[in-house]
């Protein structure tokens, strides 16, 4: 009885295995019989939605395929934090960013402000419509801005600081009254998408946060979202009625790959035409440059890497680390070029001040970097009285406290090598800084108590200097704030408040330059590198990007690009 049972089971199992094998073989072999089929031929040419039918000039739509490692988290702008590049292709803003930190008119053709800087008047472009055909006049713009503030949309309402009243005086005039002047109006408005009342009107906060429909991505931008398969791909179609005219590329297909290396392979295989700004690792640049018809673009970015020096008065750093001479010596001992070679394979720039060079108007170019000079570093420490009296290779102060600092960074093979470069340099001027790598969460965990000496870390900064300065203000040291050096200085805070309300750019720039100089000489940060963005595109398929934007797919970079038709 038992024996026959197990026998039956074995037979069934074998049968099942065979059957499953047959099925899977059939499934596998059939498609392999149709090789040579290119990706394009499979993309359906249907969906000739209304307006497209009247443009039969190019029967074959021009398609560009983009490879990225993450498309986005959601189409809903109220809680979507990822891929602003993509969002700017569907939405418009009153002011646009044309090059990093360079602002140009968007939905607002022009603007003026009162002498006290409190009343701003914007002339809104005429004849603009949302993707669903509803008009976008000053009326809708005012509605959208008010909606953003009233619902405290967490992704961008905080850019509308000091906005007291927003009204449409007529179809083309928008008037904004502020409670206090703001020094960076263009920059702030660049972040606030104008959304259609036809989609969002009547929703309460919960409705907004639960809205998953693709209509959430409806705006007035050059492209409209037609399909999104999470984790797979997203399709944009050109907006026929875009106010700058229909874009040259009819369809954009964004494909998601698990890793940057997969994006690179897909690029070489011809499965994609352009890589997104986050996709290409520096290690792949050579490979891509050697490949046929692939062009690599290296562009400036607003990302910085820095060595944070604990400057909190109640931090756990040794008193010696607060000595300006020690900080200067540390700056002399860091070989920035070596870090650039190690971490970025050369694709970065040696940095000076906190505001990156990409923001050329705000970047204080007068500041001369402390050169990498071990002899100078040793001399500085010698003169400040740090001698190696016990001859153990580590200098001590007058009381015999050795110059030993904790040096941390987040886990990662590259970070390990960077810490080695830093530690080696410091060792040569008699400072011991044994490197420790820890999980990023553990680094964050050091913060309530400022329990560290030196941390190698980085920021992706804004195209306006405000945030780069904000992270050194006293308020930001509290829990939930962004001050990671513990630096706090009344004079600096006062300058921060001043720049925030200085509407005149020249005057504001003067303050911002002073602040950078002050930070540079007091060194809560030793800014190490300004990173560069690496992107690749098929030069036989598209050309003419505006590289100023720092991202080939940024609206102002991508729209001027022209597809090459064979």
């Amino acid at each position, binding site marked *: 009885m038992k024996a026959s*049972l197990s026998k039956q089971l074995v037979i069934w199992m074998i049968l099942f295995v065979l059957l499953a094998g047959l099925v899977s073989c059939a499934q596998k072999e059939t498609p392999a019989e149709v090789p040579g089929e290119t990706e394009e031929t499979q993309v359906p040419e249907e969906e000739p939605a209304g307006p497209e039918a009247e443009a039969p000039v190019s029967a074959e739509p021009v398609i560009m395929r983009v490879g990225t490692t993450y498309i986005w988290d959601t189409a809903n702008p109220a809680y979507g934090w990822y891929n602003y590049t993509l969002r700017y292709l569907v939405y418009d803003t009153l002011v646009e960013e044309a090059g990093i930190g360079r602002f140009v008119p968007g939905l607002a053709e022009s603007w003026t402000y009162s002498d006290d800087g409190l009343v701003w008047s914007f002339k809104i472009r005429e004849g603009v419509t949302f993707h669903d055909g509803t008009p976008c006049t000053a009326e809708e713009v005012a509605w959208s801005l008010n909606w953003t503030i009233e619902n405290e949309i967490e992704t961008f309402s905080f850019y509308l600081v000091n906005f007291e009243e927003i009204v449409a005086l007529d179809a083309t005039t928008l008037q904004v009254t502020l409670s206090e002047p703001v020094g960076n109006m263009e920059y702030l408005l660049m972040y606030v998408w104008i959304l259609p009342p036809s989609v969002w009107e009547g929703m309460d906060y919960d409705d907004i946060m639960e809205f998953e429909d693709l209509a959430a991505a409806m705006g007035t931008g050059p492209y409209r979202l037609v399909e999104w398969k999470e984790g797979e791909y997203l399709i944009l179609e050109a907006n026929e009625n875009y106010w700058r005219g229909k874009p040259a590329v009819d369809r954009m297909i964004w494909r998601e790959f698990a890793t940057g290396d997969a994006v690179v392979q897909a690029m070489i295989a011809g499965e994609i035409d352009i890589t997104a700004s986050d996709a290409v690792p520096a290690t792949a640049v050579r490979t891509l440059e050697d490949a046929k018809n692939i062009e690599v673009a290296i562009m400036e970015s607003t990302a910085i890497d820095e060595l944070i020096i604990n400057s909190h008065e109640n931090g756990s750093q040794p008193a010696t680390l607060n000595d300006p001479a020690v900080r200067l010596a540390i700056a002399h001992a860091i070989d920035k070029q070596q870090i650039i070679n190690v971490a970025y394979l050369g694709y970065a720039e040696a940095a000076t001040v906190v505001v990156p060079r990409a923001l050329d108007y705000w970047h204080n170019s007068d500041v001369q970097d402390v050169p990498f000079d071990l002899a100078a570093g040793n001399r500085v420490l010698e003169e400040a009285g740090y001698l190696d009296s016990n001859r153990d290779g580590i200098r001590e102060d007058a009381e015999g406290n050795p110059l030993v600092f904790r040096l941390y960074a987040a886990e990662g093979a590259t970070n390990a090598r960077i810490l080695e470069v830093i530690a080696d340099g410091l060792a040569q001027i008699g400072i011991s800084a044994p490197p420790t790598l820890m999980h990023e969460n553990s680094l964050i965990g050091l913060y309530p108590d400022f329990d560290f000496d030196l941390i190698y870390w980085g920021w992706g900064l804004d195209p306006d200097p405000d945030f780069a300065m904000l992270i050194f203000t006293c308020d930001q040291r509290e829990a939930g704030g962004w001050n990671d050096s513990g630096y706090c200085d009344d004079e600096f805070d006062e300058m921060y408040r001043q720049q925030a309300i200085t509407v005149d750019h020249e005057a504001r720039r003067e303050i911002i330059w002073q602040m950078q100089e002050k930070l540079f000489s007091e060194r809560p940060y030793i800014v190490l590198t300004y990173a560069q963005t690496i992107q690749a595109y098929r030069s036989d398929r598209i050309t003419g990007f505006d590289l100023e934007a720092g991202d080939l797919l940024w609206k102002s970079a991508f729209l001027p690009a022209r597809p090459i038709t064979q």
Partner: protein
Amino acid sequence: MQRGNYVLRKIGFALVTLAAVLVFNFLLFRILPGDPVKLIIHSPRMTREAQDRIRANFGLDKPIWLDLERLAEGDIPGTFDSQFTAYLVNLFRGDLGISFATRRDVSELLAERVWRTVVLVMGANVLAILIGMAAGLVAAWRRGSRLDTGILLAALFSWALPTFFLGIILLILARGRLPIAGMVTPGLKPADGLTYWLDVGKHLILPTITMAIVYTGEYILIMRSSVMEVLSEDFILAAKAKGLPTLRVLRDHALKNAMLPMVTIIALTLGYTVGGAIQVETVFSWPGIGRLMYEAVQKRDYPVLQGAFLLLAVSVIIANLLADLLYSILDPRVKAE
């Protein structure tokens, strides 16, 4: 009677394991350092009020185990208004929480992706089992021959190959000929029907082959050694002495007895189906559970990770239970212990 006891004991053991996993899974994501809210918010400029609102939305403002303050106030139901009770209650309702990154239901996300992983892993396993069993059987029968040495070397090699490495090599070799990423050609319409499934099948080829190669080695080795053990038994000698044809000796006497270790290893491998494809799915951008986990780790999307871990643990527990139960059926000696 005895079998009933054995089955009950095994099921009981599985339930205890499951309970431990539930608590551990909850704890794991709370002992990590750092404030999860810091991970959800991406903008430095978000006001503290907005941060608090997010914290409340995700229930992170509540105490972890029990609200002792409210206990002190005599508010007994309020005492249990904690993250842990919310976790348990939601779990029993099948609610695994909401993704930090996409704000979608985790159970929905998992349900959407789990079959993709199952298709991939099952396909690869079926291939591997077929090849593994056949090659193992042949190697054992021709023990010591050149063929055996060849099969053994190939098996050891494939077993030792790191999955991601093999995947990348295959990807580079096949690039331009086969799709190297994704599940379907973007925008393919209609999203069902033969063309669609053929396209999916085409995208399946590389990941399936990669996984199958890695699994086959193990199956060959297990099969070979267990068949070899059986072949040394007296009853095989007796069968041969009776003059039975080779094929019958192998099929009726050797294979049947050698299946026991194979069943175990297959059941265990299938238990890891859900989580076992992380590397392959990452190399080939296959949008299954493995890649979901990989991305969740990168984005620190704790609810998604928590849900995926639970699914993983449950599938391993169930596969183990099944293996135990199958064992008792296949080998009557097991339940007698």
